[in-house]
């Protein structure tokens, strides 16, 4: 896929389902927070149209690495990234890269739902509007409705799109954030513990949603729930002390992991 600057429109290129191409190639990535090295020589190929889960104990570098993929680390003082991260073959750390455009291509959902203090409609409409994706009001409405539908939220909020996003329940707010991320046609969706603030039923709805949309996106989820990683992902990466210990087929990672550290972690024998 072409990674030219007109990025937001690119995901409208029809994608062939069930064909897994590599979307992200990271090689020899090192991340430092001041003197402290958070990621050590990490190399990984992440496929498109699949869910990759990052697991590992706190401080292992999984969230740090996740944030390098949409350059969220740029905003942290003293954070330095070396190595290459290629999205569709284009290095996202190149000087000529437009970070705003990058973040439209690489959406992010956070641990705590963070809707804007605006109406449900405006929450979703905000991104397409500032990125100039909608050509008319009708176009914008269509994008909002479709995004809410994709995020399995539309039926619950269709009669109150003018209500505040913050008036929704936690689970609904998180789905609103996913709708907001989807609205700008991202290619990659990063999820940093998206269910950790939700009750089991709301978590299950998010998992169901991830399952429904995974054929259209490259999804990376950081989670502390091993069962969740096992349920939602096709590939799992285990991080430990800044190293990528093992990355492979989820079914194998949770049944017959190759590395003893992975085995110890997933069976609850760590530390």
């Amino acid at each position, binding site marked *: 896929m072409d990674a030219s600057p007109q990025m937001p429109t690119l995901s409208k290129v029809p994608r062939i389902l069930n064909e897994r191409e590599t979307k992200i190639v990271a090689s020899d990535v090192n991340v430092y927070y001041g003197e402290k090295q958070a990621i050590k020589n990490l190399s990984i190929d992440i496929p498109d149209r699949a869910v990759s889960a990052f697991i590992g104990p706190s401080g292992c570098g999984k969230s740090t690495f996740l944030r390098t993929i949409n350059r969220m680390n740029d905003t942290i003082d003293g954070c330095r990234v070396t190595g290459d991260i290629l999205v569709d073959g284009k290095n996202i750390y190149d000087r000529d890269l437009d970070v705003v455009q990058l973040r439209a291509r690489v959406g992010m959902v956070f641990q705590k739902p963070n809707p804007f203090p605006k109406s449900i409609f405006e929450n979703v409409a905000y991104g397409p509007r500032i990125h100039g994706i909608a050509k008319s009001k009708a176009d914008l409405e269509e994008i909002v409705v479709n995004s809410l539908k994709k995020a399995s939220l539309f039926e619950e909020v269709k009669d109150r799109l003018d209500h505040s996003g913050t008036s929704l329940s936690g689970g609904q707010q998180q789905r609103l954030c996913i709708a907001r991320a989807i609205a700008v046609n991202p290619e990659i969706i990063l999820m940093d513990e998206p269910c950790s603030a939700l009750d089991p039923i709301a978590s299950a709805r998010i998992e169901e949603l991830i399952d429904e949309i995974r054929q259209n996106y490259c999804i990376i989820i950081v989670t502390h729930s*091993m069962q969740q990683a*096992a349920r939602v992902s096709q590939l799992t990466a285990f991080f430990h002390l800044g190293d990528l210990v093992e990355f492979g087929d989820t079914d194998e990672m*949770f049944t*017959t*992991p190759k590395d003893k550290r992975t085995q*110890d972690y997933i*069976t609850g*024998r760590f*530390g």
Partner: protein
Amino acid sequence: MSDHTVKSYDDDLASLKQMLAQMGGLAEEQLANAIDAIAKRDTRLADIVIAGDEKIDALEQQIEEKSILTIAKRQPMAQDLRQIIVAIRISADLERIGDLAKNTAKRTHAISEQMPRKLVSGLTRMGNLAQEQLKNILDAYARNDADKAISVWRSDEDIDALYNSIFRELLTYMMEDPRMIGPCTHLLFGTKNMERIGDHTTNIAENIYFLVHGKAIIEERPKKDSTSTTNYNLIK
């Protein structure tokens, strides 16, 4: 393997293993007594074996309940999950071994009066082999020893081979003297029981291999039991 962060999880797995060891010990004892009872035609001992099967059945149920509870509570992964699944499977095999020992003991009543002692020696030999297989496989399980499990798995062909020769021997006795048909049929079932016990130990061996390596044994097991295709006329 190192301990779980949650200590009571280790206790759950250890108690499963301990219950299984207890069940294995009981199965061994039942088998030894059953062989002894039929060899000596000791109906009193046979009755003890018949009554003793209940304990094995009860343990199987306890293992099943403990396994389900542990899965529900701990959501085990990888080797821990295999440990539990394998415990359920092995307990089912041990329960069947208990049943087969009981069935063999029962036959003591049917043959006690009429049978010449020499006829029973084949069954005793089969029984001793099955006992040894069972002992070895329980040992392999206690030590998570997949290599030992494989060697038990392979040696099942010795039992099969012996079963073939006893089968032929008993058929010959029956042909020589029709009055022997009754007791020899019981002995034939008894030896078949021992052969089945051998098969259950191979199941256990396969489970130990799976427990340790996370995959099934690929090789085909050598099978030497050809009695199902042995033609009566050929022996004649």
